């Protein structure tokens, strides 16, 4: 209901046509403001294709505060554009002089929607031919073309409403060059670096969109192209590079393109080179652990800016050896999944000094533990058949799960690290999908489901019910996942969610207001409308 009111108000304020309402910037700006308002939800819905073969794409719908129940969600149709992508190829950092004959362009294509709504991706072939399908959101979709060679053609952004036909050929102009030289210190000598990887990126529809990776040439120079003036970020290094396999720190350089002639952006990476570190991974019984992952995350690098994160694996003898930059690191050691059993717990060693040739000795994995206890419902009675999912905080973000029995108890093996525990009750009457952060699994003995607020509705397309659609409910502002479920054969879904803390006061009042209007959780297709 609120959506209708807002749209009507917008129409009156603009005094504009329906066409302008759908495509105008004012409309999209208004939508963004609504989507980030406290208590606003984003429902990501992934439907199966319809029975008549119609392809339906995963898509997002924004739900305004107080509109959580009886949602009538009509899925957007799929829009498809296809054509041939070409570019006026210009090499080097000149503006190109006389136009050249357009050449087919291989590029990644992205359909991006506002408010972090789900989009789609595609890729053009060697002839530049492409087909891209995306949800036909009524506004705010942009098409992004990311050439596979940033030195040849720029990343191009187009508003989807400007593309009003299914056949769509696009020629990309040379754009504006961004160029410079990348230097670093090798053995104390300032040196031009060949083969260093770079990306240039900018914000499109609230998302960071990056070019393909390009590298410096034999003399240390790079060139990339951008399609318009504005702010960009140049990401340099962060990996091994060059014939001598040197390591470069990751450095981000903000830059402003102010003139059509382009801009020179020299980059100094400071110290590059490598420091070899080795060690062994053992479990709590002293046995060497094969195939364990060792991740180095820099906290302070010697002699320069930037950061570095690199991973390596242990061999059959539990040994590892890797090239790094000298500095101080947090070292994370993680076992691999091997069987149903949890083999061991990952460990983080903080502030480890790494110099060339350092032997880090034995890095010890800790024993696994168990997550056990009882889940209580909103009335503090044992809750049966609750799905208990524990996800590691950091490390490999491994997932462990179990289910409560009739007495509400659960017990399953987990690694002994901080976890996010998500409790999903079998029915929404027991309580809401509830998330808890725990520091040590072994110390936990009970959880209680939050009362939360109900979210319910029906998913349809062309008036037909859409069953088996995956529905994920996010807090639109923070992007936090609040709960997920599937629609039944009648397209109906219902769950309860716990809103983020800052929203609770507001939403308690909202829920009270709503209770008089809507009553039960049952979907009412004719009621409120999600977008």
């Amino acid at each position: 209901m609120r959506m209708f009111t807002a749209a009507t108000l917008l129409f009156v304020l603009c005094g504009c046509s329906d066409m302008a309402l759908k495509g105008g910037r004012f409309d999209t700006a208004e939508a963004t403001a609504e989507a980030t308002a406290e208590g606003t939800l984003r429902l990501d819905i992934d439907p199966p294709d319809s029975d008549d073969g119609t392809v339906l794409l995963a898509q997002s719908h924004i739900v305004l505060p107080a509109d959580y129940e009886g949602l009538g969600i009509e899925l957007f149709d799929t829009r498809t554009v296809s054509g041939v992508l070409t570019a006026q190829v210009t090499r080097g950092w000149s503006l190109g002089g006389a136009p050249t004959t357009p050449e087919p362009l291989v590029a990644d294509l992205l359909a991006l929607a506002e408010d972090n709504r789900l989009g789609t991706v595609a890729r053009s072939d060697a002839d530049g031919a492409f087909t891209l399908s995306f949800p036909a959101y009524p506004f705010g979709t942009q098409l992004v073309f990311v050439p596979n060679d940033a030195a040849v053609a720029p990343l191009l952004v187009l508003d989807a409403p400007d593309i009003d036909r299914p056949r769509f050929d696009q020629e990309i102009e040379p754009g504006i060059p961004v160029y410079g030289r990348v230097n670093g210190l090798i053995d104390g000598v300032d040196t031009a670096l060949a083969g260093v990887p770079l990306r240039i990126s900018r914000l499109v529809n609230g998302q960071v969109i990056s070019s393909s990776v390009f590298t410096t040439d034999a003399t240390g120079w790079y060139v990339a192209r951008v399609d318009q003036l504005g702010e960009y970020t140049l990401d340099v290094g962060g990996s091994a590079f060059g014939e001598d396999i040197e390591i470069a720190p990751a450095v981000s350089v903000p830059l402003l393109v102010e003139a059509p002639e382009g801009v020179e952006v020299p980059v100094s990476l400071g110290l590059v080179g490598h420091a070899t570190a080795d060690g062994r991974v053992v479990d709590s019984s002293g046995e060497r652990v094969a195939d364990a992952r060792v991740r180095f995350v820099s906290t302070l690098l010697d002699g320069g800016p930037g950061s570095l994160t690199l991973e390596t694996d242990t061999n059959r003898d539990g040994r590892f050896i890797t090239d790094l930059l000298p500095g101080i690191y947090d070292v994370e050691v993680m076992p691999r999944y091997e069987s149903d059993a949890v083999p061991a717990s990952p460990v983080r060693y903080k502030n480890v000094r790494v110099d060339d040739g350092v032997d880090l000795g034995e890095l010890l994995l800790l024993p696994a533990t168990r997550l056990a206890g009882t889940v209580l419902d909103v009335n503090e009675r044992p809750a049966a058949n609750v799905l208990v999912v524990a996800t590691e905080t950091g490390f490999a973000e491994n997932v462990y799960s179990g289910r409560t029995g009739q007495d509400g108890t659960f017990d399953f093996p987990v690694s002994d690290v901080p976890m996010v525990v998500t409790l999903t009750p079998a029915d929404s009457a027991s309580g809401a999908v509830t998330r808890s952060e725990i520091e040590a699994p072994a110390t936990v003995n009970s959880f209680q489901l939050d009362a939360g607020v109900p979210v319910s509705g029906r998913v349809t397309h062309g008036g037909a019910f859409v069953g088996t659609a995956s529905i994920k409910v996010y807090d639109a502002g923070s992007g936090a996942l609040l709960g997920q479920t599937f629609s039944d054969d009648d397209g109906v879904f219902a769950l309860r969610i716990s809103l983020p803390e800052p929203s609770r006061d507001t939403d308690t009042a909202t829920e009270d207001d709503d209770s008089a209007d809507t009553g039960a959780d049952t979907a009412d297709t004719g009621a409120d409308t999600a977008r």
Partner: protein
Amino acid sequence: MTGLSWPVGMRRAPTAKSVGFMRLLAAWHAPCFAVLASGCFYIGPIPTVEYNLPPEIKRAEPAADTEEALLIGPSGQSVFVIAEDPEGDEVRFTWTLTGEGILGYGYPVYDGEGSEIVLEHDPDLDGKTLGCLLDDGENDLVALSWRLEVL
């Protein structure tokens, strides 16, 4: 098949046609085996050959085992599988990645009848194959795979 090699004993899910053929084969072989084993006449119950059917895929999203690669865009990619076992056995989902081995058992969805994994936008995934093994605990595995390309 793209990239993944399955250990001995694993096989793809039979089609409805091949399941029907297996049942016919079982019905044909059971009495023959009984007669041959007894020498001439067989007195007693004919042994029943029990066949366990593998899990049936209800939905795999995006579609698995296609010629097209699964493209992973800047915001990553969710992959989920929902399955049902004809005998009602619990289905275990194991996600694998070429060169990485077992990734994990995924996030349970669809009241535990499905599993989901979210792939981040990681250039290291490019060219690898994501696999999902469905195991009903009866030595009957179903394998799905997706060839990955990172944009």
